[in-house]
């Protein structure tokens, strides 16, 4: 439909693009969403009627955190390369981001496996299990969404469809990824520091 493209060309001079404003709005809404799960986690700390309790089973996931933080850096570098039309370097940076994000997911999966198989902690075991899996799980789901989007961009880049003029869109993806990263820092401090 022609209406869809009308707005792009004839807007007034501005500082922010509609994509940027839209992405920031989405991030605001997501912040509010995660806020509620964080509050629920904090509220139920120490209220589980039976174990396992967080202090007995949780280990600080330093490696996973390192992977995720590093992936924020790599996607930032990748976007800068794209702005200079160095597509190969961009693709390499994006690939590194996907690998690091994937590593984070694998590490999370291993932690869940340990908790479920070794400690018998599931969503319905106690309040800790309920709040832990839903909070960490929703974060992991956001990592998955980010990874899928990046894999899509990567596929397009490998086929030579991504160029400098797409920098803004890829940049918006990186904003989302940084947000997922920041959420992880909040989850980390609430679940693995405050709650233990």
């Amino acid at each position: 439909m022609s209406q869809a493209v009308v707005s792009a060309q004839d807007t007034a001079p501005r500082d922010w693009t509609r994509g940027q404003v839209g992405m920031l709005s989405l991030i605001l809404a997501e912040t509010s969403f995660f806020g509620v799960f964080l509050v629920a986690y904090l509220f139920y700390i120490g209220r589980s009627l039976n174990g396992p309790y967080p202090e007995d089973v949780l280990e600080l996931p330093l490696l996973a955190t390192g992977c995720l933080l590093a992936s924020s850096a790599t996607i930032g570098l990748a976007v800068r390369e794209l702005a200079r039309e160095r597509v190969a370097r961009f693709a390499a940076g994006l690939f590194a981001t996907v690998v690091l994000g994937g590593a984070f997911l694998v590490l999370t999966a291993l932690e869940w496996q340990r908790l479920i198989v070794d400690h018998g902690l599931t969503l319905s075991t106690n309040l800790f299990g309920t709040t832990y899996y839903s909070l960490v799980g929703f974060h992991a789901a956001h990592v998955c969404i980010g990874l899928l989007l990046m894999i899509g961009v990567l596929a397009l880049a490998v086929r030579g469809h991504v160029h400098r003029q797409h920098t803004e869109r890829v940049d918006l993806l990186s904003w989302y990824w940084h947000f997922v990263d920041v959420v992880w820092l909040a989850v980390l401090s609430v679940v693995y520091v405050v709650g233990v």
Partner: protein
Amino acid sequence: MAAIDGPAPGVAERARSRGWTETLHDWVATVDHKKLGLLYIGAGIVFFLIGGLEAAAMRWQLAFPDNDALAPDTFNRLFTMHGTTMVFLVGMPIITGFGNYLIPLMIGARDMAFPRLNAWGFWMFAFGGLLLYFSYFGSTGLYGAGSAPDVGWFAYAPLAGKAFSRGNATDYWILGILISGFGSLSGAINMIATAFTMRCKGMTLGRMPLLVWMMVVVSFLILIAMPPLTAAQVMLLFDRFLGARFFDTQAGGDAVLWQHFFWFFGHPEVYILMIPGFAYVSEIIPVFSRKVIFGYAAMVAATVAIGFLSFGVWAHHMFAVGMGKGLNIWFGAITMVVAVPTGIKLFNWIATLYGGKIRFRVPMLFCSAFLMQFLLAGLTGIMLASVPFDWQLSDSYFVVAHFHYVLIGGLLFTIFAAVYYWFPKMTGLMLSETLGRWHFWLFLLGFHLTFTTMHVQGLLGMPRRIYTYPADRGWEIWNLVSSLGVVFQAAGVVCFIAAIALAFRRRVPAGDDPWDAWTLEWSTSSPPPAYNFAERPEVRSRRPLWDQKHPDDPDWKYE
């Protein structure tokens, strides 16, 4: 792309000769903000009629003590569906619809920032609504009798948990609202992006029409308040399907936590619904008083202040749950503070009337009634914020009266005003002034018969959500009067529908600017072409059309 710059010759003729399938395809596949706006409003009106019938059935049951017109479960489903419908499927789409329709026109843009997202939002809302109503047929399986949710529109835990709400009715409630919530979120993102990045030349933030400002504030409230509801509903869904323990009191879960989450959404939601009402009034009162809005900056500031305050008052719905003194005092006090910016608005509207030449056309009639009814709604709000008084009033019919004064006396009256005011722009046709007046007076009478009396029932100790009551409580006459009011309200709504139907039969042309108004939407044709403006406008003040009509005394000299 060529079509964007001007209408291709023959487009209109072609459109007229199309078959109904093509017309249908046009509406279903549209990404035009005006068509989507009309779809939102139209869907909202359809759900409004359904929700109204549900209310009428409840008033029939309550007209007499010990009545058995409706079974208890039927009644409980009706009030659950009525509340859910009116908030999520009537209020939300209608305000989103007007926002969609008007924001681009008022800021001189050709569409919303994300037209396809806009269409996606509408269809999410529509399917969410259909899913909720499908529960009547499908919630116990298609071969069963089916049943709608009966847990109340705020679905308190643990009543909404699996232990006390078996079957799938509550799941339909959760999923229907959750899905239509995605629609609201996308609409909010769209409105913010549009208002911030698509304004025409010269339209600084300080020159945006008040309606646009207020819809921006509303959109921020949606962004912050809606996700907590979604999150809480996801928790409830986990509890019901995956055996999670969020609200399971047997496992140490806290029933009150749901209330905190729900009302952290629920109270801002009241302002999400009410601020658009303020927005319509702020556009309509100046035009019919022939005066510029008094205190534009104060109006914006008051709206933003209400937005901020709305996040600090949620627990005033919970004064009876046994909170500590400190929290009770805090939430009571903050709630009373909301009266200050709200008062500023009311006084600004009155000051706009003052010294004007007020034309009491139908939109203005609805706005006039709004002013007094909303004043009363605010004052009963103060009474409910007065914590000890609320220990008596909470969950009584007084509360029912209060929020119907807000949502009908406040919001619905302004929605009617907005429909009468912008219908000529949307269709190019005038609505009948005579039928409009009948609509206004009948509805006004019915509204007061029904809801003014409900204050009394509440003070006499009648709790809300009861399907029947004994004959010896002294509530009979008040309930009967309340129920009688429904007849007049229904007659008013019939006049409203008749006025719309008649407009399409009589086809009295409205012209571009029937009210001699001042904002940009009146500068284009009625209805506006798909591209809104042949040439993108340029403005120098808040009232570009005033500047045009009064070149000797333009606004930009004073702002």
